[in-house]
């Protein structure tokens, strides 16, 4: 087996810089934060309201943020609602994490022209991807980025497309002030408080007629951005208010996942009848893998023009829920929906530990909310745990 390097990718923010203190800035100052990032050449991507959902898109002013909006999520449903305040980050999560920006759904790998003596590989336009600042990154999303870093940067091979986008991204985390109905980051220790990997971390506080942010920097460049804002040292009361908000979110997780011995539980129940049960409900539509911030799988497609002289190689997101995914001559390895759901769940919660040292799930709940039939992985695991070790034969004779 090849050795895998477990060290941090070289570009991840350095451990805490000198500026450890938490400061406060008021809501009117928020525009300056956006302006400051833009002035440094960052294209700021943040939450916006589009087509009834929260979508991460380019933002240039705080008005474009989801002011006064919140979201409600439960199994198979997601909707936006009005809040009775003007919070900028008063929601939980949108359907898509930052994955489309770092690991785009389609990438042209290269193109070539049929040559006489050789394959004429044409250079890709050298344009660098934009320098992004992600605004409003949730704790679970930071963990998801760290997980994809291991996939694309942490092994023997480095993915140049991911690296070019990932390098230099400025990350503004916003701790969650409310947990969604499908959230369970607290079970996986991935949230709701961002603890690593950010340049800046904010808590939004709306209390007693005041609207302000408690901010801390995680890197030198984060501290520099903060220095350009008009900030005050946070008072003990303000810090307490900020901490209360995050603690409250932690106490109100909509879902829960018991992670004790999870990998072993799923591995020894590989033939559990629950897999048949869930396969009866699963449409194998692949929604869960598309919205999941950690799923990384892709396929490669060949596109040729009419003359047949030019070919392009495109990499596209793929999903282990399709039959073609595991196709080898003679048929698919995972022909049954049962085996495909099992691949998904056991990859997330068991084999990912072997491959990358963590779970492949960060507890964001997207796969629950965006499953058309509301399949809930925490419920599937609970069902298996309840009847740990049962086989189909035993169940039939019971």
């Amino acid at each position, binding site marked *: *087996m*090849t050795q895998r390097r477990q060290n941090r990718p070289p570009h991840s923010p350095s451990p805490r810089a000198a500026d450890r203190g938490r400061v406060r800035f008021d809501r009117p100052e928020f525009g300056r934060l956006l302006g400051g990032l833009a002035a440094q050449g960052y294209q700021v991507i943040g939450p916006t309201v589009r087509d009834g959902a929260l979508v991460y898109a380019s933002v240039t002013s705080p008005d474009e943020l989801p002011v006064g909006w919140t979201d409600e999520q439960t199994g198979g449903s997601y909707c936006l609602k009005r809040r009775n305040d003007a919070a900028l980050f008063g929601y939980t999560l949108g359907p898509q994490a930052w994955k489309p920006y770092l690991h785009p759904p389609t990438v042209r*790998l*290269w193109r*070539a*022209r*049929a*040559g006489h*003596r*050789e*394959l*004429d*590989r*044409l*250079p890709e336009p050298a344009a660098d991807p934009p320098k992004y600042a992600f605004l409003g990154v949730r704790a679970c999303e930071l963990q998801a980025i760290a997980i994809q870093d291991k*996939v*694309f940067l942490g*092994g*023997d*091979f*480095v*993915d*140049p497309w991911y690296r070019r986008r990932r390098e230099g991204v400025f990350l503004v985390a916003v701790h969650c002030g409310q947990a969604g109905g499908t959230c369970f980051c607290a079970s996986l220790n991935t949230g709701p408080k961002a603890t690593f990997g950010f340049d800046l971390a904010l808590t939004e506080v709306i209390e007693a007629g005041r609207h302000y942010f408690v901010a801390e920097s995680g890197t030198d460049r984060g501290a520099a951005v903060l220095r350009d804002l008009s900030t005050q040292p946070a008072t003990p009361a303000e810090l307490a208010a900020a901490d209360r908000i995050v603690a409250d979110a932690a106490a109100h997780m909509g879902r829960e996942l018991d992670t004790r011995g999870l990998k072993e539980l799923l*591995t020894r129940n*590989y033939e559990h009848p629950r897999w048949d049960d869930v396969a009866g409900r699963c449409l194998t539509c692949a929604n869960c893998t598309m919205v999941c911030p950690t799923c*990384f*799988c*892709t*396929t*490669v497609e*060949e596109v*040729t023009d009419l003359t*047949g002289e030019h*070919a392009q*190689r495109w*990499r596209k997101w*793929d999903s*282990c829920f399709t039959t073609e*995914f*595991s*196709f*080898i*001559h003679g048929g698919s*390895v*995972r*022909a*049954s929906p*049962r*085996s495909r759901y*099992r*691949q998904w769940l056991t*990859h997330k919660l*068991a*084999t990912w530990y*072997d*491959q990358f040292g963590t779970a492949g799930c960060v507890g964001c709940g997207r796969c629950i909310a965006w499953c058309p039939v509301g399949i809930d992985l925490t419920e599937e695991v609970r069902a298996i745990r309840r009847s740990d070790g049962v086989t189909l034969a035993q169940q039939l004779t019971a």
Partner: protein
Amino acid sequence: MRTDLDPRGAEATALDPMAVASYAVRRLKGETDDTFTLELQPVDGAARFSFAPGQFNMLYVFGVGEIPISISSDPLKPKTLWHTTREVGTVTRAMRQLKPGAVLGVRGPFGTHWPVDECEAKDVVIVAGGIGLAPLRPALYRILAQRDRYGRVVLLYGARTPADILYRSELERWRARFDLEVYATVDRAMSGWRGNVGVVTGLIGRAPFDALNTVALVCGPEVMMRFTVQELQRRGVRAQAIHLSMERNMKCAVGFCGHCQFGPWFVCKDGPVFRLDRLREWLGKWEV
């Protein structure tokens, strides 16, 4: 217009793992009805292609697609590259149509290799089924090149019919050697076949090797490997001494696309060659 194309596979791959190097077809040799061997040479004739027995390349046919194919040539002759392929679908069909001079894209070599060094001072049993002989041939070349370092060397080969036997003349030559035992068997015999009939696992029981001091290298269809492993263990070969080459769908060969997963393993980088004791808990399961 030639650009970032670098025929020295390994280095280019480290920079851009999806970059292909141009190789020209020198020869296409028909082997059996549905198999053929491509002899490839880097367009930049100076380059050498270093690889270890059991590794594979991703071969790209212009305008059609890219597939994993094992290297079947002699690792000690790195100037030409052989790939023996069975025609089963779109890309392999297009590959068979290639004429001498045609250009292919090559990425590689990828994956783990047969533990040829570990075989030293031991008996070596090579069990191959069908096209599974192709990735084992480089191991045989390596072993035969330093034959005195090994104990008994036994090749057990199973094919569907006598007409499907791969590398037939080479097998005849090997069979004539005193230092290599070759046993072939076919599922279905035809008139004129005087050899064994039956599955290759049937040969294991009587093959001459010292089970306690043997390394086994196995490649073939997954079902054949499961039975082979059972037979080898029944003879007393330890799991740690049995190595298999697994096959899964592959789109990238470098651990990014996820297609080749087999339980916790990425067959492209943790394999394709695995030691049995690492796989055992998964090999017995279906639809993994």
